[in-house]
């Protein structure tokens, strides 16, 4: 798309990093306003039942408590969610559907007093027998968790005829796989701060401020224009700060309205685990049919997702599993059915990877099982079946460009074997491979529009505004790089606004690895319009045509005589006085998904990120301990905008996938989460880090800026899958359930020794 670039692809420091290393960065909990009070939610504590009564008198008697809210105090419809019909109350009024459900808000002069107040609220609940498994939920006589029943969402994908293809297959492999609930575990628990006034101002640790504004306003019973949401620095999100930020955002605003005082609600760690969404647990059945030469001719997949008490993003996660379940392969006959189910557990929703890690683990496990049966090398079977440009994928979508899967396979194949992996009496070694494709941006999940503004001041400095949020992933740096590249200025002269719903355009949700691709495209377009003014002005000043002008290194340069150059600041000043616009608001609208709702055949995503991972492990057969010796993560990212940021995304997402595969499991007993803290729910520490080497393939994506496509999610899926395959290779036992903990490995080894 662009032949030569000056800043794109350079290792650039995070443009907003300085305030984070000095402690100046303001997160939601760092705001303080005169007269501020603090809110704490009272939670049901039982997973299912009906509220008989709520007595707030004991809470009001607690010193420092100034107000207690129950459902009846919510002016609006008391509903939040993602897709209509919304099914989640802000505060439960009648039915209790999970133990972490909010039933009241206690507001007090201090956070401590609010907590004591919340403990004092007396809630009488007639307990129901909780529905704790998808099987129980699907039983014919099961109690209905919602009026609509216990199926949240169910979809089918049909391509070709799997049944007849299975009959033609030389080899069939069939199996069941399971994955567990996973917690986002961002370091900053959810926090909001509402300031009342003629309009409400909500400072929020959140992912999608415009979504929150709409729901908060609705529940306040005011127009959206009466609420402005300012995204504070957000200490990680990974999909986890949408639903819950709407819930506590609405509560904080309602309390602020009643008291006419600023209200802060900051979750404690335990609340962050039990009271906000998790990654769906999944049960996946796959059947694969192949010919002797290794070609896969049919795949049939059934996905059952445990979505917990409310729909949240379940419908979209369900669709994403449907589309990705067959893997990054060219398979003529595919049949998938994905269903999400309500249970009386913490609701599940968006979490980095969005269903793809679950199905990729299952799919890639079975690809290895198939390779073994066929006597094929694991890379070879992926090479034979992997999608190439021009191949139809599972939805029948064909990309003529930017399908770099095979290149990622070859990048992995050409790397040498790591040294020093010799088995001894106690240690065994193994190598695993996994391939992944992950759809970029909303695609089938919704219309995809982003608005971005770029403006240049007379001094040549640039301000970018966009409604997509920085959550740590480095999107501000990406936008600054794109604007700097287009306008020929230094990255340091570009600032990217914080998201304030009054100051930037609605850009849809910050999800689905869309920031760089769709957001970056809007910034590129807006910057290109500003560039036109600068080029026209410079052409006037140099008495030439615009086509002879180039913007670079802070100057407008005459192409034919590079010594003829004018500082961009001077051009900008002249443009201003001449009346050439130096600000532009541009929109990037991805082509709309166009597919058949019954079969899911059609064009779904604007692009896919493709990847192949390799992992080498050593397993201690006495302890079950796994040491990862080598982890190669090759991804086709279209075009690298900032290698430093990209590596950070790949390494961080990989470790998250490793946590899913090896360490993390939410433990329920009778519908109550038992390990809602970091001592018992172990997220990877620095000692668990992976030796991840990021390898990039750049097969330019025509729908992204400079050819880029998103990369923040796919390594989660690939790492979860590659870990399972590496451990299976080392131990000689196929594990079909994630996480594969040290204890699981030890058990399998013990069983194996008795065989």
């Amino acid at each position, binding site marked *: 798309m662009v032949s030569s670039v000056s800043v794109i692809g350079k*290792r650039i*420091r*995070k443009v907003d*990093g*300085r*305030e*984070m*290393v*000095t*402690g*100046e*960065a*303001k*997160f939601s*909990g*760092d705001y*303080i306003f005169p007269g501020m009070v603090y809110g704490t939610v009272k939670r049901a504590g039982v997973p299912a039942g009906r509220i008989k009564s709520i007595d707030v008198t004991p809470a009001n008697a607690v010193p420092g408590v100034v107000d207690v809210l129950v459902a009846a105090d919510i002016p609006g419809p008391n509903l939040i969610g993602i897709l209509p019909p919304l099914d989640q109350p802000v505060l439960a009024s009648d039915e209790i559907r999970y133990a972490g459900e909010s039933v009241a808000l206690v507001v007090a002069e201090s956070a401590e007093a609010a907590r004591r107040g919340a403990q004092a609220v007396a809630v009488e609940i007639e307990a129901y027998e909780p529905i704790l498994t998808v099987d129980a939920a699907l039983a014919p006589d099961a109690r209905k968790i919602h009026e609509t029943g216990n199926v949240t969402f169910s979809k089918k994908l049909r391509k070709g005829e799997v049944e007849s293809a299975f009959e033609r297959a030389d080899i069939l492999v069939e199996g069941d796989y399971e994955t567990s609930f996973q917690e*986002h*575990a*961002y*370091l*900053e*628990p959810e926090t909001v701060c509402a300031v009342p006034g003629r309009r409400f101002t909500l400072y929020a640790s959140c992912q999608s401020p415009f979504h929150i504004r709409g729901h908060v306003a609705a529940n306040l019973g005011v127009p959206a224009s009466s609420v402005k949401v300012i995204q504070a*620095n*957000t*200490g*990680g999100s*990974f999909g986890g700060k949408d639903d819950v930020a709407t819930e506590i955002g609405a509560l904080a605003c309602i309390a602020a309205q009643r008291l006419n005082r600023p209200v802060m609600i900051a979750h*404690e*760690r335990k609340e962050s685990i039990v009271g906000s969404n998790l990654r769906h647990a999944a049960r996946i059945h796959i059947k694969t049919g192949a010919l002797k030469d290794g070609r896969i001719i049919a795949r049939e997949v059934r996905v059952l997702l445990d979505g917990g008490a409310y729909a949240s993003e379940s419908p979209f996660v369900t669709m994403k599993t449907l589309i990705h379940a067959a893997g990054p392969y060219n398979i003529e006959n595919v049949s998938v059915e994905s269903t999400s189910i309500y249970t009386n557990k913490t609701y599940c929703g968006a979490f980095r990877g969005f269903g793809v890690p679950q199905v990729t683990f299952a799919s890639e496990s079975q690809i290895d099982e198939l390779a073994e049966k066929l006597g094929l090398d694991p890379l070879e079977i992926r090479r034979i079946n992997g999608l190439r440009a021009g191949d139809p994928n599972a939805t029948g979508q064909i990309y003529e460009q930017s399908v770099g899967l095979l290149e990622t396979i070859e990048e992995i194949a050409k790397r040498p074997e790591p040294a020093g992996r010799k088995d001894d009496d106690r240690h065994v070694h193994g190598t695993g491979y996994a391939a992944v494709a992950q759809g970029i941006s909303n695609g089938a999940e919704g219309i995809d529009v982003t608005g971005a503004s770029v403006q240049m001041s007379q001094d040549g400095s640039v301000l970018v505004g966009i409604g997509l949020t920085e*959550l*740590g*992933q*480095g999107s501000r740096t990406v936008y600054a790089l794109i604007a700097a590249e287009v306008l020929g200025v230094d990255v340091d002269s570009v600032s990217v606004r914080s998201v304030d719903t009054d100051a930037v355009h609605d850009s849809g949700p910050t999800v689905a690895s869309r920031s760089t691709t769709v957001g970056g495209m809007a910034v590129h377009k807006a910057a290109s319009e500003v560039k036109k003014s600068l080029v026209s002005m410079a052409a006037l000043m140099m008495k030439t045509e615009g086509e002879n002008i180039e913007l670079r290194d802070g100057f407008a340069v005459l192409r034919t005589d590079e010594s003829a150059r004018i500082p961009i600041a001077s051009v900008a000043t002249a443009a201003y006085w001449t009346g050439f616009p130096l600000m532009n608001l541009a929109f990037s609208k991805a082509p709309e998904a166009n597919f058949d709702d019954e079969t899911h055949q059609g064009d779904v995503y604007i692009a896919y990120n493709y990847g192949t991972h390799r992992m080498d492990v050593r397993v201690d057969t006495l302890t079950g301990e796994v040491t990862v010796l080598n982890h190669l993560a090759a991804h086709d990212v279209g075009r690298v905008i900032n290698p*430093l*940021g990209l*590596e*950070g995304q790949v*390494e*961080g*997402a*990989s*470790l*998250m996938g490793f946590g899913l595969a090896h360490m993390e499991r939410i433990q329920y007993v009778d519908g109550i989460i038992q390990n809602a*803290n*970091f*001592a018992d729910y172990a*997220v*990877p*520490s*620095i*000692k668990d*880090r*992976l*030796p*991840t080497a990021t390898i990039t393939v750049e097969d330019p994506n025509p729908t992204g800026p400079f050819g880029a496509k998103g990369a923040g999610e796919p390594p989660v899926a690939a790492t979860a899958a590659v870990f399972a395959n590496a451990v299976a290779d080392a131990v000689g036992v196929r594990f079909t359930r994630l996480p594969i903990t040290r204890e699981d490995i030890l058990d399998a080894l013990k069983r194996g020794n008795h065989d």
Partner: protein
Amino acid sequence: MVIRFTCNGRAVQVEAEPEARVIDVLRDGLRLTGTKEGCGRGECGACTVLLDGKPVNACLLLAGKIVDRDVVTIEGIAGEDGSLHPIQEAFLDTGAVQCGFCTPGMILSAKALLDEIDTPGVAEVEEALAGNLCRCTGYGKVVDAVLAASRRMAPGADRGGE
């Protein structure tokens, strides 16, 4: 009671109960909000501060324990002129900062290590930062940052930025 202690090189006094948590004394009493609360149970390290040079979890430390002692928070790391400490520079250069919430605690744990050992090995870095959780980076760049900082802080090294 009045809690007197040294904070970031300056004598300070704060009105607080002796059983108040130091994290609250710092954040609410002194408005030093760079010290972050991630779990309130000493399990994540986001609230790490230095007490007489040693890293401690400010969420578990009681105000009575810091009387007449020396506390350093993230706000006390950079130079008076705003120049960043070599550890801060290294965290930015290596890409060890993503969301930034764990960063203050990470930097202070790293400082305690580097004040003790000039050129730590990887195992020593791991040990020193084992109590600081990060969910964004995968930690590889954090290790790189601490090792890079140790090289910059070595006697005679160029202490400059990028």
